[in-house]
């Protein structure tokens, strides 16, 4: 036995901890996850990249199209120009995939997960807190991208005599929907990330589901495309940021039905992620 009386008290001079009350749970986990996400540079970089790419591509694309179009104002007014103003979402979603995946896979690649779960071993709290923080941050950034894209695009189209405003039929829902669509991309990637625990794998699969799969189906026979097309995550989800709902082939879903299908995919990924997060050794 080490009956060392000369060793100083380890916590001597420190303020004693307040009496423990209640139980460490979700609220603490939520504060912790907020600290985590705001305290690493990768968050700033990915979100800045999402905004720059999302808004930048939208602005470039709409500037170019507005300058080169030969269509009249009346012809243009028939098009879904509201959706076209948010063109950059197609690439911005890929950065949101990176953001969503990293929110969970970085814990595994750094080993931090073992430290996190040693502080809060009730894993459901940790998963849910991460999910809430991710959703809120992705929502704010997503809406910044969609609204900024819309206003910049509207400015370019105004020079062609087409007036776009949020009071245009369905415009407000579509522009708000652009941000929601980007939240969905982050959630899908988060679920995949939790299930795979691998950054590159999660990003690859997320990008494949939202982007590559659309390219692949273009090579399929038309009859197949008609059956599959509207169910593809991008095609279903993008209805929520459109004001017109006719797909190139097949019948498109309505705005919210399409978004529901799209979020359904994210929910499946999240449930798989939660199952793995809860059950597998960390």
């Amino acid at each position, binding site marked *: *036995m*080490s*009956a*060392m*009386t000369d*060793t*100083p*008290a*380890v*916590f001597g001079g*420190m*303020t*004693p*901890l*307040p009496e*423990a009350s*209640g*139980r*460490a749970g979700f*609220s*603490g*986990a939520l*504060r*912790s*996850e907020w*600290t*985590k996400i705001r*305290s*690493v*540079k*990768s968050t700033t970089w990915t979100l800045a990249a999402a905004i720059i790419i999302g808004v930048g591509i939208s602005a470039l694309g709409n500037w170019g199209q507005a300058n080169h179009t030969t269509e009249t104002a009346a012809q243009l007014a028939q098009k879904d120009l509201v959706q076209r103003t948010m063109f950059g979402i197609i690439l911005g979603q890929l950065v949101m995939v990176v953001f969503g995946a990293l929110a969970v896979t*970085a*814990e595994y690649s*750094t*080993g*931090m*997960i*073992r*430290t*996190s*779960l*040693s*502080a*809060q*071993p*009730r894993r459901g709290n940790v998963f849910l807190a991460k999910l809430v923080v991710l959703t809120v941050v992705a929502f704010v950034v997503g809406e910044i991208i969609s609204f900024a894209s819309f206003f910049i695009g509207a400015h370019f189209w105004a020079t062609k005599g087409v007036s776009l405003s949020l009071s245009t039929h369905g415009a407000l829902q579509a522009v708000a929907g652009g941000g929601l669509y980007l939240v969905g991309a982050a959630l899908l990637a988060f679920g995949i990330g939790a299930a795979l625990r691998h950054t590159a794998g999660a990003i690859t699969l997320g990008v494949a589901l939202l982007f590559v799969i659309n390219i692949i189906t273009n090579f399929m026979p038309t009859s197949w495309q008609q059956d599959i097309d509207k169910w593809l995550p991008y095609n279903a989800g993008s209805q929520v940021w459109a004001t017109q709902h006719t797909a190139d082939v097949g019948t498109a879903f309505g705005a919210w039905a399409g978004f529901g299908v799209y979020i359904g995919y994210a929910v499946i990924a999240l449930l798989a992620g939660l199952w793995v997060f809860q059950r597998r*050794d*960390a």
Partner: protein
Amino acid sequence: MIEAAGLSKRYGDKLAVDQLSFSVKPGQVTGFLGPNGAGKSTTMRMILGLDAPTSGAVTVNGKPFRQAAHPLREVGALLDAKAVHGGRSAYNHLLCLAQTNNLPKKRVDEVLALVGLNAVAKKRSQGFSLGMGQRLGIAAALLGDPKVLMFDEPVNGLDPEGILWIRNLMKALAAEGRTVFVSSHLMSEMESTADHLIVIGRGKLVADCTVQEFIDNNSELSIRVRTPQLEQLGALLAEKGGIARADGEDALVVTKLGMTQIGDLAFDNQIRVHELSPIQASLEQAFMELTKDSVEYHAAVPAGKGA
């Protein structure tokens, strides 16, 4: 108090931990010894609920760790100093941990000062030396003023000053009545730190006793004899059932025979003896002796006489 009962963990067809039962008591430093791959880290991960046991159970202060109301007040653990996000500052790393258990922010500053990292609190931990990383891990373990402390190979890669610091810290924590459970594959380290030992080899418990008992029970006394008549004495010792091996040009190390027997034998046969001394068995030797059959990865013995 940590209590394991029939704890087992299987990875595929490999049994990493095999029916381990032990208890780690408060008020002393308990060393957790075993060769690399013996299952020490796996056992510690099961104590924290990071890995689920294949069978058996382990409790901390009477209940599974997952049920602890405030986990950081129950167990402070340093399993892997590298298990941090290197892009996060030391302060924010500790803050995000403290917040999970509703510990005050002030506590973060205090533990940083305690481990001597307050000057680099705002620096990202990826630039930390091994020793600083280890100190950050210990700061995290001390956040909740925990009743149980668990360290996995805490002195790995530390300089002598750092080793001494950790050693004194563990003793001080135990002296305050806390449960201190520390793993190592370095027996010499445990010899100077631990009061009690739990030794495992290939996932199985091989000893659970005090340090002194461990040495007494597991090491054969060996005797060094220096003589100019090496071969003659060697042959006589073998005849009497002793096991002798050469130790340099003019000495033998003998086991299975006592000092008196060796001395008498030499005298009876008129063999000059220039030295006759017992060799104090260290924990290192005792450990090697005990786990030689259960080492997971044997190094090939170089050609010539094995040690």
